[in-house]
């Protein structure tokens, strides 16, 4: 018999996709205050010829529902992608990043000043805070 949790994992996934540039871009959110968003895999594609570095960040926008108070901007994931290449993080089963309740998930390219990344995330909402 397959355990219940594996169904919660596979039926509870969502794909979050967007293009991230040097202006901060919201990918998802705000996460509902009674839920957290768990990121299970990340794919970063770089169509340019130069290496691009960027971040996934979270910002608290709703009332402070996070376990550690108001989040002004913390890094969920940092990545550097070589030119004409892509980077994978995670395989879709284990949690590789988490966005706290009430926070926006945002992306930002920091170098070079004109680069962009195609970001595709597999994530799931889980009820609760700080779990």
């Amino acid at each position, binding site marked *: 018999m*397959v355990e219940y949790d594996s169904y919660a994992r*596979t039926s*509870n996934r969502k794909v979050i996709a967007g293009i991230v540039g040097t202006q901060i871009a919201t990918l998802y959110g705000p996460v*509902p205050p009674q839920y957290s968003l768990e990121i299970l895999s990340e794919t970063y594609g770089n169509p340019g010829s130069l290496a691009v570095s960027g971040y996934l960040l979270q910002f608290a926008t*709703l*009332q402070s529902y996070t376990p550690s108070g108001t989040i002004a901007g913390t890094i969920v994931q940092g990545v550097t992608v070589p030119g004409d290449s892509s980077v994978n993080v995670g395989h879709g089963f284990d949690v590789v990043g988490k966005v706290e309740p009430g926070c926006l998930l945002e992306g930002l390219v920091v170098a070079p000043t004109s680069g962009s990344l195609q970001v595709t995330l597999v994530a799931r909402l*889980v009820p609760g805070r700080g779990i």
Partner: protein
Amino acid sequence: MSYDLSDIESVLVRENDLLLMGFNGGEDYVPLRVLARTEVPYLYDAVAEGQLSAALAASGSANGISGNTYQPALQLGSSFISGKPTDVFDLTRYPSYVYQSFFGIAPAALRVFLQQPFKTDQRSLPIIGYTPAYAQSGYFDGLLSPLYRPSRKTQTWVMPGMSFALGYENVEPEAVYPLLFFYLNALNVAVVDAATAYAMISQPGLAKIFTVGGLQPISYNVESHYGVSGLKLDMTLGEVQTAIPPIDKNSGPQGLVTRQQ
């Protein structure tokens, strides 16, 4: 990935099971025997079938409680079935049928609310009863009952003349398209005779007892659908015999009051 029905398998009623189906807050129990059954999966896309005119809009709530997108309950119609029925679970014209229904839900955080009959909120308790402004209780969601693994906790009885409607709440910051996977245990039933009915209410364990809908008071006319009066669980044999009069031996199978169109 495949369907997993292991959670509901053991609670599906079987052939020859005796059922006491409770209506009107326990005032009226109908004693039924399962003559035959079949199991039917039914995938229902609320937007594509026309129950909803569009996806549920993204929630704009700042606290996760008030201001979520709430869709009051609607009957489950279909714009694809011939005749475009407004309620695909309407058994009014099929009184020998009963559906023991379970459903899985996608997306996972979607909250699903039950009205049975239509316009009567079930699973709504005193004080914490759910409303569009406070939909924090009384819901099923996909975390409780994943789409491909319906939970036994979603058990809903679909009975003749007992309409059925579902409402939704979207707590997510994006539009969602509700998808439901019903698993229907479709039953062919008949009312039992008075002696069997008395045994069912007086011998613990002989019959499976269910409350149809919930605790909210409703008005369900047992006699018009089953031709007998509803039973109370503390009736005497004489009272049961009055509620279920003997049938004419020339008009149907011995010992069973069949309900036919």
